[in-house]
């Protein structure tokens, strides 16, 4: 079941991310899809907050991967925008890094073939300057998990 939520500003997008935190646990993978500036990093920041991470989440664009260990579960935040090949992705060793926690990948849709089938896809569609539609799309085993409480 896809959950569709609307966001009218960065604050809303962060709040959706924050709420998603309680649905996630060790080993979960979230793939973020959305054009440049859609709000993927903002969403990841909200998620981190929800996981009890106090450190501010910044775009991992240059670092490619950042790990936040200060929360209830470690969060590994990756951005694959600068990668050109799948081997480079392998080198990031994302699953190794994230084995003990949650993995969230910006532009994760572009490398979905190398990601686990069981993941939550989060699409952020830009519908206006400050408007976004955020879709939570369960894939694989995620389909049997309920996201009902995400809808207020």
């Amino acid at each position, binding site marked *: 079941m896809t959950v569709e939520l609307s966001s009218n500003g960065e604050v809303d997008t962060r709040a959706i991310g924050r709420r998603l935190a309680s649905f996630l646990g060790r080993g979960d993978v979230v793939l973020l899809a959305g054009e*440049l500036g859609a709000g993927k990093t903002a969403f990841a920041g909200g998620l981190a907050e929800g996981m009890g991470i106090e450190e501010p989440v910044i775009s991992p664009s240059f670092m490619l991967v950042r790990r936040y260990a200060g929360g209830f579960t470690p969060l590994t935040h990756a951005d694959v925008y600068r990668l050109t090949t799948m081997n480079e992705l392998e080198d990031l060793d994302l699953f190794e890094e994230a084995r003990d926690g949650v993995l969230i990948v910006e532009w994760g849709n*572009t490398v979905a073939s190398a990601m686990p089938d069981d993941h939550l896809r989060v699409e952020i569609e830009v519908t206006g300057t400050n408007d976004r539609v955020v879709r939570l799309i369960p894939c694989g085993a995620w389909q049997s998990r309920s996201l009902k409480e995400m809808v207020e």
Partner: protein
Amino acid sequence: MKLLAIETATPASSVALGIGRDVVASAERVERRGHAAFIVSALDFCFDQVGWRPHELDAIAIDVGPGLYTGIRVGLSTAQGLAAALGVPLVPLSSLDVIALHAATHRRHVWSVVDVRRGEVAVASYQPVPGGVVKDGPPQLVEVEQFRAILQSDPEDGLVVGDWASLPEGFFRGLHRVKSGRPQFPAAEAMLELAVGRVDREEFPHADEVRPLYLREPDVTINWKQYREEGPWAEQSPA
């Protein structure tokens, strides 16, 4: 001959210094992350222990895989940098060979295995010979189930060494002729033994030509065009 061996291809990293095959200092730990920090401190520790300076080294041995991508990269770049700076040979070794070398064979057919994740393992098989093992052929990347089938159809009694603990539960059920045993991971100390022979026989490529042994498929390109073309921000670089 003063040798340095660096092993970071698996979760068990280790570093060893040897005079020939005799270990004079070593450091090891088991942890999937932080190979880079480990190598630096382990090298310092080992050199301190024996009071050597790096320029005294005659050769460096490096485990090029198969195994963990980041680990291999960290180890190889360190080893390559050192070999270039010191002008000494760099001897690439395979993690599977290093593991198999010290398998307590009991005349069993040895299967050396390294976990490369995604449901696949890297394997190579070896015949026991007096004083060691001889590889049957090049290493392969196989799905776990396929590996099980291979073991099942092997007419010889088998001994699986390496990271068999990472195989799914129940993997060995029904494989009556197959045993599992040690070592679980490649060790830098065992690398010294393999490296000595290679150096003596001058069997090593130029240090710059040493590459990781990943065994994975040729590179797949990410189709960015498909994703970047649409949208008002298409021409912009990411914030």
